[in-house]
């Protein structure tokens, strides 16, 4: 137990900034000496946004319900791949019955994943999970299907722009924070593919321009830019900061043919909202802007209709399902992937209980 506590503390030390998650794990430890409470290690992708706090909330609630403990850690930012690898190794050293993992970079985590397999510690993926993990390592995932979530955003947006298409060439913008992370790219592509599908079904010619990665992967947009009815323009900033997202959003918002824009995560959606502070081009009867995730800025923007709507994942549900899967797998039950779902919200339903519990500040 002592060793475990030590490893736990070590993990805490490594996870600078991750304070709330570990604060209370120590106090429960007294009981566990006699009781042997089950304790799971959870390595998340970060703690930088309130999103992860909501995941923790769900996980903690479920853990209390099941009478188990969790120790959740995550690196400072989503680019601290090496930190996360370190945290994963510490988690494995703690020899928990199962590990929850949201990998930043599967390749970098491979060694850790292998040693977890060698030690017969099952891994449950959550959030973006562990894409392309070696066979048999990941038993199940509790995750948003990001591709599907992107589609939800496209469907939501399409309701708002349907009437604006057809009178000459129009443009739909998309701001993606990067072109590397699995969750963002899936979301971005889900949006593009669904939008193309919807547009083509209504008989429009579509073309995708901008970032090469997204242009290359998009399906079905076969028209040339010159004779397309609708252009989907994908902008990716040089850095993953709000300011950089804002920088690439501004030119798109200022184009005269732009009718809609989508920001595929909290940071890029905030970039759009903030750009609009001066540009004043989004809102009812203006550019239809759609965001993703929540946070106080986005919530305010949805409420005042700057944003036509947004898609929220269900972080609380991710947390709950994760712990349930961890619990099940360590009790020898068969487990399978759980889509934790996502929801479209706008100024009308933002206060509904079902939605509000997944929105964070």
């Amino acid at each position, binding site marked *: 137990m002592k060793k475990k506590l030590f490893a736990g503390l070590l993990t805490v030390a490594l996870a600078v*900034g991750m304070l709330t998650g570990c604060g209370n794990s120590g106090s429960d430890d007294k009981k566990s000496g006699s009781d042997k409470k089950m304790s799971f290690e959870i390595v998340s992708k970060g703690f930088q946004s309130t999103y992860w706090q909501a995941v923790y909330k769900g996980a903690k609630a479920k853990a209390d319900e099941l009478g188990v403990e969790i120790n959740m850690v995550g690196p400072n930012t989503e680019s601290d791949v090496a930190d996360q690898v370190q945290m994963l190794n510490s988690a494995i050293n703690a020899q928990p019955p199962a590990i929850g993992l949201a990998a930043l970079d599967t390749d970098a985590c491979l060694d850790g994943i292998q040693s977890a397999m060698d030690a017969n510690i099952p891994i449950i993926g959550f959030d973006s999970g562990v894409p392309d993990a070696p066979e048999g390592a990941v038993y199940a995932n509790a995750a948003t299907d990001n591709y599907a979530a992107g589609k939800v955003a496209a469907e939501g947006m399409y309701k708002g722009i349907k009437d604006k298409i057809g009178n000459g060439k129009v443009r739909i913008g998309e701001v993606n924070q990067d072109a590397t992370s699995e969750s963002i790219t899936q979301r971005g592509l889900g949006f593009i593919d669904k939008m193309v599908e919807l547009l083509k079904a209504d008989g429009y010619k579509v073309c995708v321009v*901008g970032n090469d990665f997204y242009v290359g992967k998009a399906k079905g947009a076969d028209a040339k830019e010159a004779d397309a009815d609708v252009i989907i323009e994908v902008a990716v900033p040089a850095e993953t900061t*709000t300011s950089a997202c804002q*920088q690439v959003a501004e030119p798109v918002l200022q184009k005269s043919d732009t009718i809609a824009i989508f920001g595929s995560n909290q940071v890029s959606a905030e*970039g759009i909202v903030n750009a609009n502070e001066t540009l004043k081009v989004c809102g009812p009867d203006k550019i239809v802007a759609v965001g993703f995730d929540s946070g106080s*800025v986005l919530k305010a923007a949805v409420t005042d209709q700057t944003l036509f709507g947004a898609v929220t994942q269900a972080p609380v549900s991710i947390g709950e399902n994760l712990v349930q899967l961890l619990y099940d797998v360590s009790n020898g039950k068969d487990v399978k992937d759980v889509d934790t779902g996502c929801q479209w919200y706008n100024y009308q339903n933002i206060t509904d209980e079902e939605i509000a519990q997944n929105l964070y500040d």
Partner: protein
Amino acid sequence: MNNNSIIKKIGMQKVITLGILLLLLIFFSLANPTFRKYTTFLSLMGYTYYIAFMAIGVTFPLLTGGVDLSVGTGLICYALAGGYLVVYKGWPVWLGLLIAVLFGVVIGLFNGFAVAVLDLPPFLATLCTCMITRGLGSICSNGTGVPWPNGSAEGAWFRNLFRLKVGGVSIPIGIIWVVLAVVIMSIVLNHTRTGRYVLSIGSNKEAAKLCGINVVRYQITAYVISGFFAGLAGIAFAASFATIQPGLGAGFELDAIGAAIIGGVSTAGGYGTVTGTILGVLIMSLLKTGLPYIDLQANWQQIIIGIVLIVAVMIDIIRSRRVSA
């Protein structure tokens, strides 16, 4: 020699910088008509403020022959700390702003102490505080993003410090603060002992020491100035953008240091002006704002900014060769 005397007086590098600035403005305006809009100017200013404060501050350690790498992560850290107290602890906004600046001063003192007293290489010392402030920022904000008061929220008034809304029109009054900072720090650099000694230390630290100048004190002063302005940059950043996320800021310092170097601050110290720095800042923010308007993909933007920096550093090297010859 005499026909060039006006150019010589202003400084060749500043003339070149100003020329490049105008060329860039013309180029972007021709390439994309929307760039000429007032709103673009507004957002250009949004990026200019925080880079400008950082760069004005970091000019001083650079002039002593040092460097301050902690300003980027620092400004995020200070803005997080102040913002956390305001948003989650209910402190008044003015106090949060004050905390941000004071925090910057404390980190500046620490840097100065490490460099001047402990004699650590500035690069190393401030690289350490760069990491420290990055971690501290996360701790201060409890790991969560901090949305400084926005829109109609109580306390959102401080955003008006930089972007005043009169009727439906936004006025970028942050320019006033930047101009004020440039004027004050130019006077400090050119007309006070602090400035003179900072330049002397950067030009020839040994000679300065042998003149009986308190080298330790003025080196520390330079880093404190840098920290103070990083604090102001934190405020400018908080006022211009939405939620501040912990872990950001790494790399911001390069915008500032790059701007100073483009503006003619010598990488070896001892030579440079605040007005030059601010011209460099404008080039930096103009590139950052303008390049997306000509539909250039992100990676190419970085390459172009890198090339501009190399050219600036080369000009610096050529000049310092001439001085030491």
